[in-house]
C-alpha cells in the first residue's frame, strides 16, 4: 500500500462522511437539540435539587449546568458513534458497504479510516455545542478549547469503535432500537455524565459500582478534566483500552476469515 494512495482513500472516506452529515441537516439539528434540551430544560429544573460539591477537577462549587456540559459533550459523541453504527448497518443493507470493502486497501485500514471520519464529525458537533454553551454562559478556560481537541478525537474514536463493533453484530436496521435500549441509554444514565458518582453512592452502592465500571464514565471524565486543563490518567487509560479493544474486535468481525461478513453478502 503506497502512502499517497492510502491518504487519498482516507481523505475520500472523511469527505464522504462530512458531506453526508452536511446533507442530512436533520441529523445535525437532532445531534444538537438533544444535549441542548438537557442543558436548557433539565439542568435548569434540577439546579436547585442537585447541589454539586467540590470534586476534582473543580476547585470550587459549580452550577449544575457547568457540571453536565462535559457529560453532554460525551452524549453527543456517544450518539454520533451509534449514528455511525446505524449508517454502517444501512450501508450494508443498501450495499454501499461493499464498495468500501472491495477497494484495493487493507480492510483494517479502511475500517479505521471510517472510524476516524465518524470521530471527526462528532468533534465538529461537540465544538458547535461548546460554542452554544459559551453563549449561554458556561465558559471554559480558553486554552482548554485547544487541549480538548485531541481528547475529543480520542473519545470520539473510542465511542465510534463501540459503534463499529455493534454494526458488525446488528443484522438488520430494525434491530437498532434494541441498541438504543440496551446500550446507549444504560451507558449514558449509568455514568458520571449527569451526576457525580458520590451522589449516586448516596442512593445505591450497586449503582455506584456499575457507574464506576462503566467505560463511558471514564470517557466523560477524560473530557471533563481536559476542559479544566487537568489530566486524569485512569480516564485516559480506560478510554485508550476501549478504543484499542473495540477497534480490534471490529476489525476481526469484518474479516471474512471470521465468517461474520457472510451476513453482508448473503
Amino acid at each position: 500500500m503506497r502512502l499517497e494512495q492510502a491518504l487519498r482513500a482516507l481523505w475520500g472516506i472523511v469527505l464522504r462522511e462530512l458531506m453526508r452529515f452536511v446533507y442530512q441537516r436533520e441529523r445535525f439539528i437532532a445531534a444538537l437539540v438533544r444535549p441542548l434540551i438537557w442543558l436548557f430544560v433539565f439542568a435548569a429544573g434540577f439546579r436547585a435539587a442537585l447541589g454539586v460539591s467540590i470534586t476534582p477537577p473543580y476547585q470550587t462549587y459549580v452550577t449544575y449546568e457547568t457540571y453536565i456540559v462535559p457529560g453532554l459533550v460525551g452524549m453527543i459523541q456517544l450518539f454520533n458513534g451509534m449514528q455511525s453504527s446505524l449508517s454502517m448497518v444501512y450501508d450494508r443493507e443498501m450495499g454501499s458497504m461493499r464498495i468500501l470493502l472491495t477497494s484495493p486497501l487493507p480492510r483494517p485500514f479502511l475500517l479505521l479510516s471510517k472510524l476516524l471520519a465518524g470521530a471527526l464529525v462528532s468533534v465538529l458537533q461537540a465544538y458547535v455545542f461548546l460554542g452554544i454553551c459559551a453563549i449561554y454562559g458556561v465558559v471554559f478556560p480558553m486554552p482548554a478549547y485547544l487541549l480538548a481537541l485531541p481528547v475529543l478525537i480520542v473519545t470520539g474514536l473510542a465511542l465510534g469503535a463501540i459503534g463499529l463493533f455493534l454494526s458488525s453484530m446488528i443484522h438488520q436496521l430494525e434491530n437498532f432500537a434494541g441498541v438504543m435500549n440496551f446500550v446507549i441509554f444504560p451507558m449514558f444514565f449509568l455514568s458520571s455524565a449527569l451526576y457525580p458518582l458520590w451522589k449516586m453512592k448516596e442512593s445505591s452502592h450497586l449503582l455506584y459500582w456499575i457507574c464506576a465500571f462503566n467505560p463511558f464514565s471514564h470517557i466523560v471524565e477524560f473530557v471533563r478534566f481536559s476542559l479544566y486543563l487537568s489530566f486524569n490518567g485512569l480516564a485516559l487509560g480506560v478510554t485508550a483500552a476501549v478504543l484499542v479493544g473495540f477497534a480490534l474486535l471490529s476489525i476481526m468481525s469484518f474479516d471474512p476469515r471470521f465468517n461474520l461478513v457472510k451476513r453482508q453478502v448473503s
Partner: protein
Amino acid sequence: MLDVILDVSGLTYRYGRRIALKDVRFAVSGRRITMLLGPNGAGKTTLFSLITRLLPIQAGHISICGRDLASASSDILSFIGVVFQQQTLDLDLTVDQNLRYYAALHGLGRKEADARIDEALSQLDLAGRRRDKVRILNGGHRRRTEIARALLTKPKLLLLDEPTVGLDIPTRRALVTFLHDLVTGNDMAILWATHLSDEVADQDHVVILDKGEVKAEGTSAAVMARTGANSIDDTFNRLTASTSHEA
C-alpha cells in the same frame, strides 16, 4: 491466443452444510464477454463475492492476471471493477461525488480522477446528470452511474452481477449493446452474471452454472452444439431444467 484474466479452478464453497459452489472451474479471457448464465440460486453471487474477497476461499483457487487471489495483497482488487446486483450508490450524494469517492478509494489523484470521471460520464451519456443527486435518478441512470464508476479505474476484469435487473426493455438493450461495444474496444474482460439468455451475443463465451456446478462452458455455438439445442435459450432451459421446474 487470448490472455486469461480470471482463472477459477476447483472452487467449492459451503454455507454450513449447504453447498453453494461445487468444484467450479472456468477461465475468463480478455477482450470478450463471458456470460455466466444461471437461474436464481445457482451460486452466481457467491462466486462474485469470492472473486471480490467479500467471502474467504474455502477450497480451490482463483487467480487474477496470473496472481493467486488468496495469497495476493489487497492491491489485487485494483484489477477489478464491480457492479453488484444490489445498487451500491450513496443516494444522498451526487453522481460526481459518488464517482469521486470511488476514485479516492482507489487512490486516484484529483487531476486523474477529473479526467476519468469526464471520460466515463460521457461514455455512459451521463455528463448532464453529473450534479444530480442519485436519489432523483431513475433505475437506468443509476445503473449507468454504477458502470461508469466501475470503469473509472480502467479495470482488467469487469464483474457485472445481473446489471440489467429492473430495467425497462429499451434501457436493457442499450446497456447490452454498450457493454459489447466496450469490451471489443478495450483491453479488458467482462464476466457478466445473468439469468436472461437473450443478453448473450454470438461471439460471447458462455458458462452455465446450476446448483453450484458448471454444466457447460465454451463459445455459445459450441455449447449449443453439445446439447443439440438451436438457441442459447434452449440450451439454458435444457441444462437447468430441474431447477426451472423446482422454481
